[in-house]
C-alpha cells in the first residue's frame, strides 16, 4: 500500500513537472525548438488538482457532484462486468475441462476459440446488442454477454494448461489407486490448476470491465461508464478534466474488481501455491 502511494506521488510529480517544464520553455524541449507532445498546456493535460476538483464540482449547473454521477455509473457497469465475468469464467473453465478430457475436441475446436478472440469487440458488441433486443434480453444482460466474451478465453487457455500441470508421477499415483477420471479431475487436476486459473481470472476481471464499457456504447445506455466516457470525450477540448475524472473512475472500478479476485485467491490458496503461479 505504501509502495502504491509512493508511485502515485511520483506519477503526480512527473505530470506536474512536465507541465512546469512546458510552461518555462513555452512548450518546447529545452534548448531546442522541438514541440513537446503531448502539449503540456491545460487543454491537453489539466492540473491534477483540477481533475480532482472537477470530481467534486456538479456535472451540470445545480446538479449532484460529478463523483456521485460517476460512482453510480461505475457501479452499474461493474454489475454488468461481474455477471459477464462469472458467466465467462464458468464457460472458460468448462471449455478447459472439456478440452483436457477430449483431445479430439481440443484439436477441432481450439482454433475456433482462438479465432473468436481475433474479432474486435467493437464488431461483436453491436450484433449482440441487436440480437439481444430481438430476443427480448434485457440490455444489461446483452452487455454482460459481451463482457463474458472477453473473459472466457484466458480462463479456458489457462485451465487447459493448469489441468495438465500435475507431474507424471502424480498421475501414475492416482492410476495406482484406481481413481476414477472424475476423482483425478477434482482431487488432483483442479487443485493443481488453481494458480493458473486465478492468474487468468485477474486478467479476465480487468478485461470484463473493458468489455462492459465497450458493450454499453452500441447499447446506448445512459446509465453506465461507457456513455459517460463518450460524452466527456466530446467535450474534451472544452473541459478535459472531466474525461480524466471519468478515466480515473473506470480505472478504480477495474482495480476494485481485480483486487476482489486477488482477495479470493489469498483466501483459497496457500501462499506457497500463489508464489508458484506468479
Amino acid at each position: 500500500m505504501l509502495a502504491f502511494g509512493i508511485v502515485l506521488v511520483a506519477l503526480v510529480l512527473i505530470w506536474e513537472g512536465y507541465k512546469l517544464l512546458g510552461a518555462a520553455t513555452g512548450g518546447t524541449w529545452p534548448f531546442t525548438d522541438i514541440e513537446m507532445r503531448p502539449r503540456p498546456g491545460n487543454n491537453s493535460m489539466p492540473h491534477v488538482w483540477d481533475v480532482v476538483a472537477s470530481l467534486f464540482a456538479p456535472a451540470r449547473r445545480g446538479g449532484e457532484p460529478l463523483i456521485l454521477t460517476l460512482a453510480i455509473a461505475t457501479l452499474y457497469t461493474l454489475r454488468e462486468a461481474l455477471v459477464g465475468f462469472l458467466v465467462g469464467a464458468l464457460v472458460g473453465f468448462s471449455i478447459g475441462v472439456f478440452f483436457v478430457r477430449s483431445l479430439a475436441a481440443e484439436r477441432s475446436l481450439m482454433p475456433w476459440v482462438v479465432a473468436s478472440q481475433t474479432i474486435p469487440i467493437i464488431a461483436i458488441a453491436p450484433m449482440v446488442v441487436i440480437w439481444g433486443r430481438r430476443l427480448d434480453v434485457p440490455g444489461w444482460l446483452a452487455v454482460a454477454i459481451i463482457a463474458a466474451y472477453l473473459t472466457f478465453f484466458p480462463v479456458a487457455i489457462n485451465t487447459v494448461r493448469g489441468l495438465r500441470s500435475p507431474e507424471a508421477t502424480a498421475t501414475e499415483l492416482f492410476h495406482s489407486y484406481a481413481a476414477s477420471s472424475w476423482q483425478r479431475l477434482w482431487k488432483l487436476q483442479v487443485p493443481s490448476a488453481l494458480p493458473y486459473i486465478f492468474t487468468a481470472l485477474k486478467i479476465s476481471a480487468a478485461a470484463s470491465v473493458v468489455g462492459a464499457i465497450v458493450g454499453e456504447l452500441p447499447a446506448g445506455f445512459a446509465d453506465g461508464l461507457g456513455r459517460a466516457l463518450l460524452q466527456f470525450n466530446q467535450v474534451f477540448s472544452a473541459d478535459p478534466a472531466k474525461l480524466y475524472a471519468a478515466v480515473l473512475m473506470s480505472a478504480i472500478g477495474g482495480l476494485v474488481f481485480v483486487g476482489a479476485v486477488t482477495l479470493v485467491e489469498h483466501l483459497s490458496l496457500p501462499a506457497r501455491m500463489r508464489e508458484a503461479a506468479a
Partner: protein
Amino acid sequence: MDFIVDMQGLSKTFAGRSSTVHALQDISLQIEPGEFVSLIGPSGCGKSTLLRLIGDLLPPSGGGLSVNGKEAHQARIDGDYGIAFQKATLLEWRTVRRNIELPLELAGVPEAERRSRANDLLQMVGLTEFSDHHPWQLSGGMQQRVAIARALGQRPPLLLMDEPFGALDEMTRESMQNELMGIWRETGTTVVFVTHSIPEAVFLSTRVIVMSARPGRITHQIAIDLPQPRDLAVRESPRFFELLTDVREALRGRTGTR
C-alpha cells in the same frame, strides 16, 4: 503356487518413430510373500519399467504376469500394492495427514476409520507432530516418509518402490533405510525396490536381482544371507562387504564368487 509376483517370459517394447526399443526381454521372476527384492542395474536396464509392469501402470508387450494371484490389472483395482517414487509426489495443498489419507479417501473409506488409520501411520513413520504441516515445510527425508506412510494406507501385501531414497543425502539415506527395515518387519509386506546403489540393495534385501541393459534382462540373482534384524553391525560385517563385491562383479557382467 502362491508367489505374490510371478513373471513368465515377460517382455516390454516401446515403439518409437523410427525404431523399436526392447526395454525388457524374457523376464522370468518369482517373488514369495515377505521377501524384500531389489532390482539393480545400469540406467536403461528397464528396472523402473519392470516395476511399472507389476503395478499395471504400463501394459506388458508379451509374457505372463500375475500379482497377488490375479492379473496385474485386477490387483491394481483391488489396491493390492502401494507405490512410492523417487519424488515424494505429495499434494502440496494437502496437509501431511490429508496426504496420507488420500488413497483411503479415493477408496471410499469412512472418515473416522481414515483418521485412525492415518494416526497409526503417522506414528509408524514418526511424524505425528507434523500431521498438520504442509509438504513444503518438511525436509526431503520427511516428505519421503509421508510418501511411504501413504503407500501403506490400505495395508497392501506388496510395496513397490522406485528409487525412493535416490534424492536424499547419504546420512538421511541410511537412517531411512533403517526405518524401512523396521516397517518391513512390522508389517510383513513384500517389497520390490528399485535402486542403483549397491550398498542399499545389499543392506535391505533378502534377494538382489541384477539386470543389464539393451535389452533389459535379468543376469544374476543373489541371495542375501545377512542376519535379521539388519543393523549397524551388519553394515560393518565382513559378509556385507563380500556381498557388495558379489553384486558389483555381477553388474560388471562377471560371474560372482557364489
